[in-house]
């Protein structure tokens, strides 16, 4: 975590000059099954919201649409809403519930 935060701060100063931001998306549970990966890099235009990122991901993996209404969304391990602005080097986690046991 510490490392990520330091990086994020460094990146902050440069992000205003950039056209796009690069983030890492983490997939859990059903989202991981649909995407077939535990994580992937994603590039979105600067100023994008979490919702914009989701739209882009759904375009890449249409199966994610079914989870849209039922997931915890977190940025850098903290709860976030779809309207939150995503910054360079953010880690966006998509966490649908598991019900098995």
């Amino acid at each position, binding site marked *: 975590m510490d490392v990520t935060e330091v990086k994020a701060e460094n990146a902050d100063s440069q992000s205003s000059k950039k056209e796009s931001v690069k983030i890492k998306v983490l997939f859990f*549970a*059903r989202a991981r099954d649909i995407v077939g990966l535990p994580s992937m890099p994603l590039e979105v235009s600067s100023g994008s919201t979490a919702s914009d990122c989701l739209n882009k991901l759904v375009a890449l993996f249409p199966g994610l649409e079914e*989870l849209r209404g*039922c997931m915890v969304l977190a940025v850098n*391990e*903290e709860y976030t809403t779809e309207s939150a602005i995503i910054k360079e080097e953010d880690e966006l986690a998509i966490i649908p*519930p598991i019900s*098995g*046991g």
Partner: protein
Amino acid sequence: MEANGGDVARIRSELKSLKAAKSDIETRISGLEAQLRDLTLLNASTVSNGSVTGDSSCNHELSPDMIYRYSRHLLLPSFGVQGQSNILKSSILVIGAGGLGSPALLYLAASGVGRLGVVDHDIVELNNMHRQVIHTESFIGQPKVKSAATACRSINSMIKIVEHQVALRTSNALEILNQYDIIVDATDNAPSRYMISDCCVVLGKPLVSGAALGLEGQLTVYNYNGGPCYRCLFPTPPPTTACQRCADSGVLGIVPGIIGCLQALEAIKIASAIGEPLSGRMLLFDALSARIRTVKIRGRSLDCEVCGENAAFTQKQFRDFDYERFTQSRLSTAPSKLNLLPAESRISSRELMEKIVKGEPYVLVDVRPEHHFRIVSLPNAVNIPLSSLEARLPEISCALNKEGITDSEKGANLYVVCRRGNDSQRAVQILHSKGFTSARDITGGLEAWARDVDPKFPTY
């Protein structure tokens, strides 16, 4: 060889009668133990109330036996006599004696939870044993509650174990949950999770909720000290397609084991009032990468339909709420049985067997995923998973031609099979729409084949 067969039969019959006698003796033992336990508990309470002039100078209620049994807890500075006394006075209900409930119950019993309840309506099966470590082979076929309670009692005879051998429903949940301080959700399906969370909100009980599937686990404490409930996080239930069950998707046995242990830990922390419960946070366990992340989750939602500011979710509303309809899935784990096709598009496993015996040419398509096909399959079956069926239709035409099945009756003697007979119906619908109008599915799938045709055929 014949003599051998006779021996086998004799040994089997002797085993059967011995097992019956053993089970009878075990029932009598556990009955007597329960009687004895109740009597000693009664005596202990009258003694401790009656003679305060005891010679030991300790200002707590731990008996010498308890001091010895829980000594390692008492030696923990941050836990000590106070923590243990709190646990001994607490009552915890574990809902589900499966993969999560097994370790949770074992540790809660061992830790000395004063009154420990178990809810489950299932019976112990062989395919539970790889993860439901509280049960032993000798309990296969018996109620899980009975098996779990026996195991807990054999670990700790000083606590009270309460057996609730029922299916938890809105009709009985309030009454059962109300008897306990802390609720542990160790169930395996979405409607139960919503029902238990709502019930905890209505009754004001903290809920330790764990879940595991495949190689991942999740853990959160809900409805604790003004924290969020399950509905604050997931106001809309997941679509049924996203609700996977261990019985379909598989689970590495130790994954629910780890989450179940963490559930016991959170329950113990709440019961003993030590530490910081996992409220407002969600722990995510990833077995493959050996990574545990704790994500800060939202606080209580003011708009939550159950615990929000303007929510008026009463006991009556809870009783009347249809959780199966809300989540579009069943409260019991029994798989659903679809009925998508007319009778003429289906064939029973027995009928298929007759056709095979008669030597009729046929093509059998098994639409299960490839890793299922690798577990076991019928002879001559071609594996074309449902997900790739449309793309692989030429393979079916090719197989039909090879068997000399003419195009005049397209797809006559084309049969489709899956595990339980649901996906095979979906596949037949696709085949019909693509011109294989005579394709038929095998009713009940391989499970029916194993039940009705070949009892030696492996089930999973």
